[in-house]
């Protein structure tokens, strides 16, 4: 089977790639496009380390075929910061020590960004439910939630 030619937009820039039909978007990002920020924790939709935003929707890139990216707009962890300026979420994660090994962090950040895009004023409970698909084996989650709530407040100008 011939490779599939896909044109898409990633982090605001036009992108194109060739992929095998069974290659996931996560494989494409990491192996074809050298965007290795997205991680593979499980490959089965359970851990959220591979989270990306496709046409405004948070999804697991391990549960999407690369071929499905055709004509879409994608945001990955590499597109969260504004050049050298960290996104408020990234800054707050550092301030609150919301990461230890850091493996879950790209996925948590992308998922948190999607949350604040959809709802700038989440309650703590809403944030916890929204992030229930992002597993972290280090932090115990409290610091992650504190950082997200603090970033949300800062982004609201509070």
């Amino acid at each position: 089977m011939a490779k599939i030619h896909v044109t898409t937009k990633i982090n605001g820039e036009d992108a194109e790639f060739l992929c095998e039909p069974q290659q996931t978007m996560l494989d494409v990002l990491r192996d074809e496009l050298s965007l290795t920020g997205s991680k593979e924790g499980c490959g089965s939709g359970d851990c959220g380390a591979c989270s990306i935003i496709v046409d405004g929707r948070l999804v697991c890139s391990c549960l999407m075929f690369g071929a499905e990216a055709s004509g879409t707009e994608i945001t990955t962890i590499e597109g969260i910061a504004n050049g050298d300026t960290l996104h408020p979420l990234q800054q707050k994660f550092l301030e609150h020590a919301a990461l230890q090994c850091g493996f879950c962090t790209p996925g948590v950040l992308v998922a948190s960004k999607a949350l604040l895009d959809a709802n700038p004023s989440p309650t703590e409970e809403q944030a916890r439910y929204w992030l229930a698909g992002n597993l972290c084996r280090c932090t115990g989650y409290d610091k992650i939630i504190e950082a997200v709530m603090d970033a949300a407040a800062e982004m609201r100008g509070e």
Partner: protein
Amino acid sequence: MYAPNFAAPQSIDDAVRMLGADGAKPLSGGTDLIVQMRSGRNRPDHIVDLKKVPGLIGIKAEGAGFRVGAATSGAQLGEDKALVAAYPGIVEGAELIGSTQVQGRASLAGNLCNASPAADSVPAMAACGVKAVVVGPNGEREVAVQDIPVSPGKTSLTKGEFVKEFVLPALPANSGDAYLRFIPRTEMDIAVVGAGVQIQLAGDGTIAKASVWLGAVAPTIVEVDASCLIGTKLDDAAMAKLDAAAQAVCNPIDDKRGTIEYRTKVAGVMARRTAEIAFKRAGAR
């Protein structure tokens, strides 16, 4: 090496033709199919992505009912205020599927056609009389959702057929639906028991019609004989009969989530609790 074909047809006819090929499988959100492909359990020769077919994604109000595109994501269902107001039970079932990420892709058709007895969106759809519009080489037919899964992993769809959309019937007056599931955690788990209920009230506030379906307690979803509720306002006697009727239709498996005895007992509890919510919703309309 395993190397399937991938195609994203843009018309029903092309999709039907492509799905007629040996070893072809439809793809909606991929949250079951891709997991199964990666574990080697499912190895389709042709992946046919249905999401570009017109009508497969989207929600249309139709009279007092709705048509929901087969591949519409759970997230989209939850954002449709009119749909949530009319069929809160169906939407709460769909929204229980997986995490926010899974919700971004998971569809009603995938949930139904994966044919898991624990599929969370199916009991409430059955209770509400939802029909699947199936298209295939011989044209179109409407099938009650409960007639699509026939056993775990198997459906009644024949070669080349797929679900195009769901018809949610015009909302009966004074009716309410609900879905509840029991899981050992608060999120991200497979139902030990799920219960979907629709209740319609008569003018005097008693129950005129009731439909109760259980998931995860038999190889397919099963209907509970809810005749004991008719003419009542869910008094204790009616509830006790519903509990017994629910337990009577259970034929569950024993697994780490629950023994046969436990699932059977919980089925009675879930039927009662879900009926109570549906009854309240019906009364509030």
